[in-house]
């Protein structure tokens, strides 16, 4: 089934070059509505919410932001935040823009590392969007929640 014109427009915004060099979809050829639906189902199956995941990401980013580009330890986690000049708009065309801040989180207990931008936090919180498979910042919601320490 086709997706509506608004999601079509957003999917266009997510192509390489529109907002970022690599775009937001990687090599994922699914329609945006399917990407959103499948990630949403995965989150629901594990009894968590996009809001909880985004809030935990924001928590770590704020800790790292105090010492930009240096590695900060918080319990089992090592956080490194990279700050760049400028802003990036949200491809969902909701008039939101995010700082060009990237966070790297290493979970010493699981040995996993995840990487996200401030825009990812907004897109997860407001749209339940984790980017398409193979994209630069994509970490699936379950893997992300595990590395954040929200689920085992």
């Amino acid at each position, binding site marked *: 089934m086709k997706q509506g014109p608004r999601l079509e427009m957003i999917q266009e915004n997510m*192509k*390489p*070059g*529109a*907002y*970022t*060099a*690599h*775009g937001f979809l990687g090599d994922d050829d699914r329609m945006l509505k399917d990407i959103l639906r499948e990630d949403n189902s995965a989150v629901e199956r594990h009894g968590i919410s996009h809001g909880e995941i985004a809030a935990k990401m924001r928590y770590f980013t704020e800790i790292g*932001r105090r*010492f*930009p*580009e*240096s*590695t900060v330890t918080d319990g089992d986690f090592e956080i490194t935040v*990279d*700050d*760049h*000049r*400028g*802003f990036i*708009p949200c491809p969902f065309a909701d*008039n939101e*823009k995010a*700082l*060009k*801040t*990237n966070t790297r989180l290493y979970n010493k207990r699981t040995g996993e590392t995840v990487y996200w*931008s401030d825009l990812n936090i907004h897109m997860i919180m407001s749209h339940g969007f984790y980017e398409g498979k193979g994209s*630069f*910042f994509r970490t699936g919601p379950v893997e992300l929640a595990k590395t954040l320490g929200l689920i085992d």
Partner: protein
Amino acid sequence: MEILKTILGITGISTVLAVFIIVAEKFLNNYGECGIDINDGGKLLKVDGGVSLLSALASNKIFIPSACGGKATCGLCKVKVLDGAGPVLPTEEPYLNKQELQEGVRLSCQVRIKKDLRIYIPEELFNIKEFNATVTRITDLTRDIKEYRFDFREGEEISFRAGQYMQIETKPYGKVKERAIRAYSISSPPSDKKGVELIIRKVPGGVCTTYMHDHVREGDEIRITGPYGEFYMRDDSDDYVFMAGGSGMAPIKSIISDILEKKLDKKMIFFFGAVTKKDLFHTEFFRELEKKHDNFKYVPALSNPGPDDDWEGEAGLVTDVMKRYVETGRDRHAYLCGSPGMINACIKVLTSMEFDESKIFYDKF
């Protein structure tokens, strides 16, 4: 058979409707020639209706700052429209405050020209020029920062104030099919009129920085416009404190060079924040300036020097290091350039040290 007939019927009707809409659009959206009166008759333009005010002005060599190329995401392309614009669009609202709305300020990329317009543009924007410049030198400064020298064509010159920025227009590359425009501060001094130097840090996934770092080579020709911006040295008798990190060094280098070339009677101290020694650059350049000029001091500060750095200089966050050298903000100006996070941290510390907020300057991009 019936099903096939129905499908063909619906397809036929849809095709006819689509053609009708396309033809109707041609006539309904044909606004003909429209006039733009700039600054009460200062300049009169005739343009084809239906295009955005931003692109109509650009095609007449009037360049309004725009870092997003007309997507209503940077909020830089503000122009006062006195008459002839339609209602403010929802895409504009987040970028316009109450006073701007009352004064008729609009995002020029969102104003579609449908009839004659009367607009106001600050005079300095007429100084903005378009250059087809050649990249004549690329210098690696750190693992992710490069400096680019752009030389203009024979006979072309630029006049700018130290601290201002240029806009680069990328060409399509790789999977990137559209051109993009981004802003970068000038690092060379205004006395160098035959070209400009820009310091560009690669942003992961950045459209323009990826283009510049991975696709542009010495000898390439690139379209740049400028100068833009209100981040420049104010004439006054106060001493200056400069704080920057990463590619934020660019406008500060230009301002310091300009002041020293003009032999202005002004004490200056420049705090440059980096993480480790390998993130420092142009150290020799500023050390040389220190040797030659008693009124200038350079203080590089490492927030996390490595064991191999053998670092004997200042360590800690650049804001903490600054407090060791500057007792009060009274009679001082502060010029900041870096990421929004760094700028916010600096403003917080500076205002706590009695720096007058109206004397703290920074670029908002």
